[in-house]
């Protein structure tokens, strides 16, 4: 499972395919993350938790 921002979906999908993991679950969060205040990053993390759990369970 990999977490990426929505601006980098194309690279993430291409790279997972190139590395032989085309079905690698991706958790997509809003762009940008760089330069955001810490409280925004924490909120982004909390908001993506359900996606992360789902991706891990699906992978299992």
């Amino acid at each position, binding site marked *: 499972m990999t977490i990426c921002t929505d601006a*980098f979906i*194309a*690279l993430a999908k*291409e*790279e997972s395919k*190139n*590395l032989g993991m085309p079905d690698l679950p991706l958790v997509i969060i809003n762009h940008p993350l*760089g*330069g955001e205040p810490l409280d925004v990053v924490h909120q982004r993390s909390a908001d993506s938790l359900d996606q992360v759990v789902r991706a891990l369970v699906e992978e299992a």
Partner: protein
Amino acid sequence: MTAMLKEDLVSEALTFKDTEDVIEAFHARRWTDGLPIVPPTPERVNAMIAATGRSAREVVAVVPPRWAEATVENVAVNAVMAGCKPEYMPLLLAAVEAACDPAFSLYSVQATTHPCAVLMVVSGPVVKELDLNYRHGIFGPGFRANASIGRAMRLVLINVGGGIPGSGDQSTQGSPAKFSYCIAENEEACPWEPYRVTKGFAATDSTVTVFSGEGPHNINDHLCQSAHTILAVAADAMAHIGHNNAGSVSKGDLLVVLGPEHAHSIAAGGLSRQDAQQFLFDKARNRLGKVKLRATYKAVNWPAWINPDDDDEMLPIVSVPEHINILVSGGPGKHSAFIPTFGTSFSVTRKIQPVDY
């Protein structure tokens, strides 16, 4: 016409009705840099391969982010498309190999949002043999060898490595340097030993060095006469916090291209290349408190002797003077250039292997 394939080649065969059809098809498939290509016919590709003295199927390197094999054959295809002559192939193969050395971090260089390109620096007898430009306009247009070799590298990065803008190449703004970026040493105007010798190669060797270079930043000084004042101007051009080396300090090296007149003034002042490197290392610095304005600064990348809690410390842009590489190139005039790099990438030099037919 057949754009590719011969029985002993493994590339896919594509047949087109004419040259215009080939060019349009390559544009449509995003197999170009946006400019028309020379159709890679079997005859042209085989001529390229023959000039290497190597097997078409030989794997030269694995190119990220697609992690695809660059073979002599598919590098030759891209060299044809770029307008190269067959005799450029040994240089191009050495450069592809150098760019794929782990120290260069090509995955990051290709996929980053930063506007770095692969700068090729050629040194040695091959410069004149291939008619590479090393005088007026080294970074500009007008010279077939520089333009087509630099373009061939970019086409390999796109077509083999998958460095396609928007997917494998995530550069926010890109750079004109991504079209073609190949320069050569002006050895006859260099007051010090040739660049390749500083990298441990023999004077009789020819080499290519790759840098993850931003576009060149001009250093203009028409008035200073002394070595130290010229270098002080250069240091000022290098000491700002907007480039990646300012924050990545210990993780990479960079390049200063001295115009011959600046180089001669510096040497006439009694300074060796090592002296100039030391001066720039000492003077091209940023106040730590200023560097901390960069949200991406990382104290872990700084030399151990820097106190990260002292905002008045002056932070160098590389960790040792030798990481300020100095090349002499260009024509008459009082201009030099600073080439910052991706930051977490070291330049790599390879010998250009003579062809044994």
